């Protein structure tokens, strides 16, 4: 089993690194963010752009880079992505689970490990449905 996990990890990283500059956060949300990785935002913001986006749509921290969330929004609007993916665009994504760093998000998706959140977060989500 560990061999299979290592293989999956290698394949996932091999595919995602060149295309999305994947940092292997282990809890991939690409499908819901217009196929743009929020972990490439210098502030690693998973819930939309900060207030520092420049007038030309570029990043506050790296002026040469287009804001990840400007790109994500454009793609969410223009790409023919499945409706269910687009519906998840405005989800309140939970804080990154640092324990998953370096693991395969595919495996975490299958085992639903990537849906585990701290008890307080899970309780509020259950009570308000507001996510």
């Amino acid at each position, binding site marked *: 089993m560990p061999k299979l996990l290592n293989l999956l990890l290698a394949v996932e990283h091999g595919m995602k690194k060149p295309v999305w500059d994947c940092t292997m956060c282990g809890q991939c949300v690409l499908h819901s963010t217009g196929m743009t990785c929020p972990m490439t935002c210098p502030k690693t913001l998973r819930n939309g752009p900060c207030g*520092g986006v420049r007038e030309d*749509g570029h990043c506050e921290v790296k002026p040469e880079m287009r804001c990840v*969330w400007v790109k994500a929004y454009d793609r969410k609007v223009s790409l023919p992505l499945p409706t269910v993916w687009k519906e998840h665009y405005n989800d309140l994504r939970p804080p*990154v689970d640092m324990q998953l760093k370096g693991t395969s998000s595919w495996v975490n998706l299958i085992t639903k490990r990537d849906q585990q959140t701290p008890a307080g977060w899970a309780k509020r989500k259950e009570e*308000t449905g*507001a996510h």
Partner: protein
Amino acid sequence: MSKLRDLLTQSKDVVYTAEFPVIDGGGMEQVKKNVDRLSPWFVAVNATDNTAAHAHASNVSVAIAMKQHGLEPIMQIVCRDKNRLAVQADMAGANLHGIENIALLTGDDVTAGDEPETRRVFDLDGPQAINVASILNAGTYLSGRKLSPAPNFFICSVENPFAPPHDYRIERALKKHRAGAQMIQLQIGYHPDRLEKFCAGVAATVPDLAIIPSVVLIKSAKPLGFMNDKVPGISVPQEVIDRVAQSADQAEAAYQLALEQAKHALSLPGVRGLHITDFRHDDTLERLMYDLGRTPNQYK
């Protein structure tokens, strides 16, 4: 007790907020001077958290000092410098001292400050931090561990309707509202069309979210150019800069611009008040407040 919450939920009164000057010197005497200057006009004032990525006396300490001197704080917590444990510790500390208004912000990047070599944290982002405050209000930490007595935070946030992607800013404000924000202060901006669109979009969906746009008091065209060139997220159209720069009396032209902005903002749906940023430090603040129909100590 949060007077800010009471006013917004139980009255139609216009709410004025401001920024408490950072404390780097002058000690408690300086805190008192600032309180004396601001308290006649403002219901609550932001205690900032390492504003613009510069270290200062901490958010919690300044909020406590303000409260001791009789000025209601809106204690900011910024995600740049603190991981989720530290953010929750600030919240629990505020609760311990009876501070109810808290504002959760993502924060400027470390590169905006005078120590750009600092490690940036951003363990949470703004919307997540708001949700964490809501979790504490329900009586537990993020982990589910009990916090008693549960806080009664009035949760505030900040949005920038002037920065791209403009259409998305409304959705982001709505997300913050879903996470628990009840009031949203807006960043400085010089595009009234963007402000109108934002307020209309937010008020149409969540009329109970109090929108508080910013108005800046400046003395000349120079700071307008500076903000446009140097502050990411702020763009000032050339015609606005020219209007002040080409005036015979720049200080007066800058004042008239601010007054016009204030009146325009107050006329928009969802807007419950204004956030005044005073870079002039003269008697213009009083002038503006009188011109907006205010008199001192109306909140007392």
